[in-house]
């Protein structure tokens, strides 16, 4: 559990300028599902799951994902990014406990 919030990012080993690259990311997170009591009623509490993913390239937001509990535990995402200039790719995950998990990777040619 100590690993919760570790963000891993994978880029292709070589990137050509202007290429649309495939970025893979994974975050360690339990993505809690709703629990029910014996009568089948949903237990009201603050379920801890990631609700937002923000991908920014050189500080500019390029992709935003809004996720729900019906995304798997330790969610992974693959998405495109146009690498037209070198820079810093940051991926931020926000969960319902107000925590923020960040990962960053340099894009260079």
């Amino acid at each position, binding site marked *: 559990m100590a690993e919760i919030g570790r963000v891993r990012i994978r880029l292709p080993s070589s990137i050509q300028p202007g290429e649309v690259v495939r970025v893979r990311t994974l975050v360690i997170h339990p993505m809690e599902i*709703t629990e029910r009591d014996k009568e089948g009623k949903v237990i009201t509490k603050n379920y801890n799951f990631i609700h937002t993913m923000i991908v920014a390239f050189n500080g*500019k937001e390029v992709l935003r994902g*809004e*996720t*729900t509990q*019906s995304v798997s535990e330790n969610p992974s995402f693959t998405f495109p990014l*146009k690498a037209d200039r070198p820079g810093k790719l940051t991926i931020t995950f926000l969960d*319902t406990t107000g925590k923020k998990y960040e990962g960053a990777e340099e894009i260079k040619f």
Partner: protein
Amino acid sequence: MISMTRRVFVKRLIGFCLTSAAAFTDFFRPGASRAQTSTGSVQPEEKVEATMKRLFGARTIAPGDGKLKLEMPMIAEDGSNVPVTVQAEFPMTASRYVKNIYIISDNNRRPLNARFSFTPEAGKAYIATSLRLGMTTDVRAVAEMNDGTLYMVKREVKVTVGGCGG
């Protein structure tokens, strides 16, 4: 010269307290409408038709065959981790691009799985992730263009062991 008498002042003070108290309780009222649009709270339990109506209203949805691809296994043994890839083969230019991709699974108690918002800087529009599916279900992918046009593809996934406890 003081124009406000003590009586008027007290009346106004009471009035002010009442209105601000009303505003205060209104803000903390449970089930306020902000829970409806954000995925940051637990999604409402509803039928897929209700989800589609909530997200797209009465807008027409064109079939996305050939343009929008949804890749999933035919049979998913473990419903708690079903890989999915949605690929929208539309050009991504500043004037016309894919704005949102929605992933919706019909038979889940809370059908909306995720929504991804793209910008032209992404270069292409595809997303791969993994879903939790409660039972055998149709999964839909809906692509929304920046002009509001909607495209949808749908396919069935057989789920051996459901992945949603809730």
